[in-house]
């Protein structure tokens, strides 16, 4: 194994994704532009134009076709990638099911953007979370480094269990913000991520194969069970790949939930994506001020890290769940998932849901502090209301 000397580059989250695609030796990219995803595919196109990457680029006529073409490419044995956001992801919805059902390890970057109307190009997690039940795994990146690392790990995980993965970064906060990213030399990526070995191959004619045919009630159920099982098994694969990544490149992803100050915390902030960068910053400050707080950053939303959440729940009095999303008629989606996961456990920390930053509204260290105050009050005097639309203009 060659020695790892990282290549440091100042890049946007989108360029981090594009570099990862190049380093992963993706063979087919089919994509359609949408703000704020566009610069990912532009950068990839540039790599191809300059002869830096050997990729078949299919400039499709819609996101629905972007996913359909990725599905065709993946079914024909290629390593396939696409990227989108918001309305584009919604248009793909039908095909997301097709990709997972046909067990194709496609990797896609979704740049979290709010759904219209009203039009908004800014950050919001509802687009990706609305795809929760499509059978895709979901990895939420906190920063540009995690976008890069996430895409590389995603291919390895997806191709091990034959389930597609969405790597999610937030609009503008990551997609268009430049930061230092440590990239991995190509030979070392190649060692980490060998060429794909497809589950089946449409270009293999040794026997006729039929994929995605009609299944009667006698068989359909088992197909679904196998996908469910693959997702469950993916938890171990995710941890192993995350650990291997840490051993090779120094950044450990063996936990599906990244934890900080959990051991002696009264309560923790829980959330996903870039907003957790703000939370981590705030928690460091609050700790210095004597608040006994911690954080739990959910990296993988699918499969859901229930076991890791249980461990956290056993050691804290409260969990403040921050959702940059909302399921109408109910509550924040992460809150809903977390609460549901703990129902049968004896650990019953008080849980409160804070809806924050929808449509790109700023979420600051001051906001975290205010929420910390509120949580302290909740832990001392009981839960007043479960869901709070924090910083709503009244």
């Amino acid at each position, binding site marked *: 194994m060659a020695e790892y000397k990282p290549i440091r580059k100042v890049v946007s989250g989108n360029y981090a994704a594009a570099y990862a695609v190049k380093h992963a030796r993706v063979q087919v990219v089919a994509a359609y532009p949408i703000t704020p995803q566009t610069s990912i595919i532009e950068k990839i196109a540039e790599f191809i134009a300059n002869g830096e990457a050997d990729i078949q680029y299919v400039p499709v006529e819609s996101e629905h076709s972007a996913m359909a073409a990725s599905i*065709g490419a993946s079914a024909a044995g290629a390593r396939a990638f696409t990227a989108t956001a918001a309305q584009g992801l919604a248009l793909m919805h039908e095909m997301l099911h097709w990709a997972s059902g046909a067990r194709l390890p496609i990797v896609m970057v979704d740049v979290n953007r709010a759904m219209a109307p009203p039009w908004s190009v800014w950050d919001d997690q509802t687009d990706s979370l609305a795809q929760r039940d499509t059978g895709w795994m979901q990895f939420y990146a906190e920063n540009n480094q995690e976008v890069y690392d996430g895409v590389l790990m995603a291919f390895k995980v997806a191709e091990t269990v034959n389930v597609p993965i969405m790597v999610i970064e937030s609009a503008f906060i990551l997609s268009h913000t430049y930061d230092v990213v440590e990239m991995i030399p190509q030979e070392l990526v190649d060692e980490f991520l060998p060429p794909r070995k497809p589950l089946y191959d449409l270009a293999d004619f040794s026997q006729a194969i039929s994929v995605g*045919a*009609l299944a009667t009630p006698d068989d359909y159920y088992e197909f679904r069970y196998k996908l469910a099982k693959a997702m469950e098994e993916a938890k171990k694969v995710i941890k192993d790949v995350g650990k291997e990544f840490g051993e090779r490149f120094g950044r450990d992803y063996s936990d599906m939930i990244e934890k900080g100050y959990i051991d002696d915390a009264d309560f923790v902030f829980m959330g996903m994506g870039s907003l957790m960068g703000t939370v981590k910053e705030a928690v460091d400050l609050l700790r210095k001020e004597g608040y006994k707080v911690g954080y739990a950053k959910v990296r993988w939303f699918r499969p859901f890290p229930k076991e890791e959440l249980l461990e956290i729940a056993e050691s804290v009095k409260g969990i403040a769940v921050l959702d940059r999303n909302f399921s109408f008629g109910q509550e924040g989606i992460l809150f809903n998932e977390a609460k549901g996961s703990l129902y049968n456990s004896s650990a019953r920390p008080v849980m409160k849901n804070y809806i924050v930053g929808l449509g790109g509204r700023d979420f600051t260290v001051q906001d975290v502090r205010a929420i910390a105050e509120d949580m302290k009050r909740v832990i001392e005097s009981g839960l007043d209301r479960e869901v709070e639309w924090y910083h709503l203009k009244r």
Partner: protein
Amino acid sequence: MEIPESIKKRLTIPAEEHFFAGHTACQGCGASLGLRYVLKAYGRKTIFVIPACCSTIIAGAWPYNTLDANLFHTAFETTGAVISGIEAALKARGIKVKGEDGVMVVGWAGDGGTADIGLQALSGFLERGHDALYIMYDNEAYMNTGIQRSGSTPYGAWTTNTPGGKRHFLEKRHKKKVIDIVIAHEVPYAATASVAFPEDFIRKLKKARKIEGPSFIQLFAPCPTGWRSPTDKSIELARLAVQTAYFPLFEYENGKYRINMPSPKKEPKPIEEYLKLQGRFKYMTKEDVEILQQWVLHEWEKLKKLAEVFG
């Protein structure tokens, strides 16, 4: 079944079968015949993409495959995109496509999956120039969901959502000319074909194999179930559709039109001869028949002119 040498010698279409018995098409189904001919022309080194349509069922439920070729079933509107992706993957992997010994990537979609919901993906596929073949098998309605109109349903036809009744509510639009839309993309090769003329169809399939870039064939494929026609009349109907010039056979190749009728000089037979064998046209009034007849002749004249000027 073993084919005797004496018969083999007289056959102009390949003797080998790659479409298995036991498929689940209705009796007299034109689509199933079409599939059989495509397989005869291309053999098993073919990747089929079939969207939601009757052929999903014809090809067999899991774990069966009545096609002796690789098959990917896909969503209704995605044929054009999926064959694009497959072709791109083969190229990325350095696998030869088309030519004598390369892999044939074939999209096989119904008229609905082509003329309506799949038109966008078809257009994208044609425009980008992928090395694959798209076949629209045209049975002129959505048969898989129980005979509803499609953009390819002809004037005056009964379907379950254009029924004939007291207020005489039938399909009032003429058949969408999908092949003209395809040609407008300036594709290298586009053709019509019919299950009544298998030699012509197979010749066109073989040509498509040699063409560089995307090709398109619109195959006329009668459906006794949806057309309310006797199951033993499918070939006769398909032949009459050509003889009446209702569905003329022609090719478009690099800007040139060629009519491939058995006798292109002959006056077309009256459209009634074609209509009267089918229950779906029984609600048409005399005026309706005249309207359809005029349309057919008008389109036929147009095609003849095109062949004359751009032949």
